[in-house]
């Protein structure tokens, strides 16, 4: 194939005609370069995560203590399993996508329809699973206390098992009304109040001598440090805030940046999956209408396939960085 512009290719160049640099059609080559730039964007995010993690290497939350939910197994922590399921869903939808591309090469419309449909279903299951993961992350499970100096205290029993605030916090006869806009000036409101006040947590801690404070600090055995009872009492005096669940300001898992990166990176990836599903649906209808049958080329399926595989590729890295390492 000539790489030099020839007279007979003149008006087809911009339509992806026969002038093909690097042997790929215009659309496919540009999809590759879009993927390259998007991959660099994600690399930037993940590298930023690495920067913050190295910066707080001694206090970073341990992933297998954070992501422990599995449907119908409440109260029975299952680290990794749910995210492994999500990974399989995405890999499998990648397989059905590549099967659709393969069927397209042979101009088998019915097969393309079937495999593309399965791909879309897989994408929807993944996005739904991610929403569920977010819900659990935002809601939190145990709750924690933040000190005046900004470090986070969690609670464990003498065997080292986590204890939820609800299990020991006292109920004091104190009333603290949530400030909402209709109670003060129109611009005055505050974040949702936690279920317990600092005083209630401190009183409950006094009443339960078997509860200890666990700090963010990771010890030589790569476990979080558990303080002695007297040290725990001392640390808890500095408590200033009760933290339940996660938001962009603070979270009950540890380092404040952890939740920010989790929301931002998995959110950005989830948005890619969502757009991928939308694009797949559009192409799915085009296949049904016979657009590519008439063109005698299913290259469009191949191009959206490239994007879909890229989404899977990014997830492989997000999975490693957030859940494994």
């Amino acid at each position: 194939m000539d790489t030099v512009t020839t007279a007979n290719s003149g008006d087809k160049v911009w339509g992806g005609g026969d002038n093909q640099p690097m042997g790929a059609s215009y659309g496919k080559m540009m999809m590759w370069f879009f993927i390259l730039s998007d991959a660099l964007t994600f690399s930037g995010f993940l590298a930023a995560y690495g920067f913050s993690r190295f910066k707080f290497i001694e206090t970073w939350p341990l992933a297998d203590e954070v992501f422990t939910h599995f449907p119908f197994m409440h109260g029975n922590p299952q680290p990794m399993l749910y995210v492994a399921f999500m990974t399989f869903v995405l890999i499998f939808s990648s397989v059905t996508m590549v099967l659709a591309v393969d069927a397209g090469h042979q101009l088998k419309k019915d097969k393309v329809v079937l495999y593309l449909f399965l791909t879309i279903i897989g994408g929807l299951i993944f996005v739904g699973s991610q929403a569920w993961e977010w819900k659990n992350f935002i809601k939190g499970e145990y709750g924690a206390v933040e000190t005046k100096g900004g470090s986070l205290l969690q609670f464990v029993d003498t065997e080292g098992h986590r204890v939820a605030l609800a299990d020991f916090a006292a109920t004091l006869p104190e009333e603290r009304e949530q400030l909402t806009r209709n109670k003060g000036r129109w611009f005055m409101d505050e974040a949702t109040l936690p279920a317990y006040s600092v005083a209630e947590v401190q009183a409950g801690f006094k009443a339960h001598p078997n509860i200890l404070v666990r700090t963010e600090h990771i010890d030589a055995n790569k476990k979080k440090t558990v303080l002695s009872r007297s040290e725990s009492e001392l640390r808890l005096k500095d408590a200033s805030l009760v933290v339940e669940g996660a938001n962009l300001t603070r979270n009950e898992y540890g380092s404040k940046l952890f939740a920010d990166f989790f929301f931002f990176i998995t959110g950005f990836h989830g948005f890619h999956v969502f757009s991928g599903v939308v694009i797949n649906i559009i192409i799915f209808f085009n296949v049904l209408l016979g657009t590519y049958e008439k063109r005698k080329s299913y290259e469009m399926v191949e191009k959206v396939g490239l994007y879909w595989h890229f989404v899977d590729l990014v997830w492989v890295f997000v999975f490693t960085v957030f859940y494994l390492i």
Partner: protein
Amino acid sequence: MSHAHVSNTKRIWTVFGLLSIITIVEVALGIAKPGFLHNNNLVGVNLLNWIFIILTLVKAYYIVYAFMHMEGERKSLQYAVIFPLIFLVVYLLFILLTEGDYVFEVFKNSTIKWNF
């Protein structure tokens, strides 16, 4: 298109099997966290994390080369996409992780307590 349109179904399922096995191994290691891998370091990273990183790169290779069919593209396109990516990612990681570690040391050894 330069490459012939023969069906690749067999290869697709082989690659799927391979990716599944790698993922299962990763998850099993992630749950078990064997002590001798988790507590021994090689160049500042523990052995378990080295395994995860290598397995992830193997997975990435198969996704790009088999599923995205990079192996069917011309060498010029392959290199045009992959070399900038590898170079920039390695550079970015090197520079940011070194800097992150430096900031950690500064915090750790400074006379001012920043988190208490």
